[in-house]
């Protein structure tokens, strides 16, 4: 979900997906999407020639952004987010993965 962070953290092989948190392999029930991601991950695992190889999956999340952005977040903010909100009081309710 955050391949740029994986690069910064020096992961040796990376597959990037532009999916909401909690959905590493795709939509529930969408076996074709899940297979595309897993097969690419396996190909990068076995076939990457150099450290830092990154390949991104060209799949657009099939849910409108606003809806998907809300859907992945827990119904109650996580403890650390509640703590951060209590100290910074941002205007929007937000959560961290």
């Amino acid at each position: 979900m955050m391949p740029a962070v994986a690069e910064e953290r020096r992961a040796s092989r990376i597959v990037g997906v532009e999916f909401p948190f909690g959905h590493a392999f795709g939509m529930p029930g969408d076996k074709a999407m899940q297979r595309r991601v897993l097969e690419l991950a396996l190909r990068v695992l076995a076939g990457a020639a150099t450290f830092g190889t990154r390949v991104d999956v060209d799949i657009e999340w099939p849910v409108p952004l606003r809806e998907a952005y809300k859907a992945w977040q827990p119904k109650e903010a996580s403890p650390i987010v509640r703590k951060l909100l209590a100290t910074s009081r941002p205007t929007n309710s937000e959560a961290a993965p």
Partner: protein
Amino acid sequence: MIVDSYRFLPRSFRPIYEGRGPFPGEEGPVWAPFEKRLASARIALLSSAGLYIKGRQPSFDLEREQTNPEWGDPSWRPIPADLGSDDIASAHLHINDEDIRSDPEIALPARLLDQLVAERVVGSATAEHISVMGYQDRSLEGWQNHTVPELVTRLRDQQADGLILAPA
């Protein structure tokens, strides 16, 4: 097509993740060539979605995280590769896990890996896959000193040739 790593992240949280660089001591490359053909390799899966087996394994410790928000459970759970989806539960305070509970394959695609083994794309799957909690204490002390060495031993015991790490 380049993935936008921050598309689904609240804007104010982006600085928490962006531009932080490697962890101290992890600046150099770590590389292990994959020497086998995939069709003869044994593959393991690891999910950080906080999965565990209903009724047979304890949940990840969410109560402690509730009282100590900067702590994350560093323990791990072996998930038998032949475990049915109905037997998988999840414990994670940072995501809505409804979709994972309805289809655990989106976090740990064990059935799909079995299918690729049956099709001879992959040689075999390990007898167990691994579940961890993605939210961790920032020091990573428990993770680095205990969890990772235990996982490496477990995966080597099962003769894993490769591991697919799947963040939640």
